[in-house]
């Protein structure tokens, strides 16, 4: 009797576990459908003919696959040039964001100096000012510097720190034991050296998060390039995408195929970095243990 009831208990626990798993998987599938549906809609629209896009009721899978949409859309404007321009801006901005913000965050997290906390609050408070408020004054500033129609207004700000990234990195650095820093300091390492040899490797996951955010931000930025760039040869992909949207009609098949192409590098980058992200997490948990 005893063993049987224990068995039953075991069974029911197993059953409950199974139920729990089923529910979790179900919720995950439901969530994925919600997240992936717009993506699928974009891909399917990008392969349809204009006539099929207009059809009602809409089709989920294209009846005919028009892969030529991709080539035709790419050829309507100098997209190769625009893609290189965008890549250049995004890569420069990302390098700046990763190194400069981590340097600032290191100071806030690990160096004791007078007025540090006040200064940190001041930095954080810049997050309260919405971008649109500073848009015109910033434009005037860059115009006075003679930087209009150059990529400088799009790249240099990334090298001047961003409150959100500084906050993110500082919080992460706070979790790294002070003993590690002190030991290195006693061994005669300078702060710059500690930052480069100890902090950067240990904060890899946070740095990769910053890199993904800032690359994505620069890659998808429309307003910045729109305001500061005047030569069409210096345009970026996001401005290019707008050419398919007209006053009277929108070329959805081109707009969607081009959007898929533009999205691709971001998705690939994420998958690529994700591997490192996990690796990075292991290192940090290793030091804590």
């Amino acid at each position, binding site marked *: 009797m005893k063993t049987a009831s224990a068995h039953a208990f075991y069974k029911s626990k197993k059953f409950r576990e199974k139920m729990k798993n089923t529910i979790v998987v179900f919720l995950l599938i439901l969530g994925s459908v919600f997240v992936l549906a717009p993506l699928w809609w974009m891909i399917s629209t990008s392969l349809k003919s*204009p*006539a099929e*896009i*207009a*059809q*009602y009721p809409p089709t989920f899978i294209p009846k005919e696959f028009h892969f030529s949409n991709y080539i035709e859309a790419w050829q*309507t*404007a100098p997209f190769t040039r625009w893609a290189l321009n965008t890549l*250049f801006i995004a890569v*420069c901005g990302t*390098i*700046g964001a990763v*190194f400069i913000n981590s340097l600032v965050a290191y100071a806030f997290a690990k160096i004791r100096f007078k007025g540090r906390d006040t200064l940190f609050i001041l930095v954080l408070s810049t997050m309260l000012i919405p971008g649109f408020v500073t*848009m*015109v004054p910033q*434009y*005037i500033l860059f*115009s*006075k510097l*003679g*930087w*209009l*129609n*150059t*990529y*400088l207004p799009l*790249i*240099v700000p990334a*090298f001047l720190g961003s409150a959100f990234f500084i906050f993110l990195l500082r919080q992460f650095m706070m979790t790294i034991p002070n003993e590690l820093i002190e030991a290195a300091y006693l061994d005669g390492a300078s702060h710059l050296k500690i930052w*480069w*040899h100890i902090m950067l490797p240990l904060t890899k996951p946070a740095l990769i998060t910053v890199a993904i955010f800032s690359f994505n931000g620069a890659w998808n930025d*429309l*307003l910045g390039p*729109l*305001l500061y760039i*005047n*030569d*069409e040869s*210096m345009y970026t992909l996001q*401005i290019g995408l*707008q*050419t*398919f*949207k*007209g*006053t*009277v*009609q929108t*070329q959805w098949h081109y707009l969607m195929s081009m959007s898929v192409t533009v999205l691709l590098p971001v998705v690939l980058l994420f998958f690529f970095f994700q591997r490192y992200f996990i690796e990075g997490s292991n290192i940090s948990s290793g030091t804590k243990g």
Partner: protein
Amino acid sequence: MDRKRNLLLAVLLFMGFLAGCSGNENSAQAEKTEDGKVVVDFWTFWGSETRRPIIEKIIANFNESQDDIHVKHTFLPWGDIWTKNLASVAAGNPADVIINDINTVSQRAENQQVEDLSQYIDESFEKQFYPHLWETVVYQDKTYAVPFNTDTRLLFYNKAAFKEAGLDPEAPPQTWEELEEYAKKLDVKTGNQYERIGFYPLWGSIGASSWMTNADDGKGFIENGKLAIDTPRKAEALHWLLGWKERLGEKTVQTYQAEFGSEQSNPFIAGKVAMWVDIGTFYTQIRDYGQDLEFGVAPLPSFDEDSGHWAEGGGFVAEIPKGADHPEEAMEFIKYLTGPEGQKYWAMKNFDNVANIEAAEAVASELTGDEQMVYQATVENLQQTKMFPVPVEYPDYHSRINPVVDNILLGKISPEEGLKKAESDVSKLKRE
């Protein structure tokens, strides 16, 4: 050691990048071409495959005729172009010529965002343009822009459907009453399903406000600085619009509406709606997707026999943003752009209504067949087309009226109550 070298390398690379970024600086800011011509920066939102070649051909023609001026076209996305314009005017380095909305010229004049063009313009220049368009570019006796293109609304009707319903295909409805009578005859119903709908006033390129002004003898929401929102005729127009929805049923209207949105499935072209209000360029869709459609065009029906066939128009102007470097050269180009030659080319290629009278009439007589029939009708219709520019005292007044009208059409508030509310909302907006 290795890492140090890497760091150094990285720093050097940044510097290289930054230097690379600024490399273009001088050439891009150039105000003269290599052969000494003044560069006129021209911003438009015409970047599509159809429009861009047309505007660029007009620019090329102009550039060929000039010894001292070179116009450089820059495409900027629709909507965002004006954000950029505002920022660049504030910074003092705007384009030399920009295409902008015709109904808000006085706003920009009042806010010092646009140059006064009066010194370049005389009466003979003004006479080239339709008076109702010219009115929009004058503010406090000064001229701030030159009209470029415009539009007007016509009733497109399916002649085959007219014959089928026993109506005379050469006699489109003249009044609202006739419109409703014809529409009922043109309805085709099997059971509860409509196979064809005769007419629905809010489909096509027209909204409730156009019908309200049509009913009110062409009077807008603000007439000569006075509010005319809460008027009996406007309320009557709203009741009339609600009547259509009631007769056809909310569900029918929505099911049909869900099918619109693009050329190929346009319900008028597909023969599912027999009468349809749209602008002149709608013809190009019929031409491209409805080859066999037998159709006619007519002015909008009038409220009753004594009132006019009033339609609402919009359009764009060419203007010089405040602080432009080369206003004189810019004006030279604007004169070509809005002159008979440039306007005729634009009108022929785009099938668009233009502001220059001579060009519009030349195009109307040069075209043939259906093209001519429609174009001629739009040109004649400009006589009974009204523009409703936004008055300086009531900036953005539409944002107060539109939500109320939406609620009236949804049946959440009665037309009389709603219009009263809208009028009082707008009156609070008044800026001295």
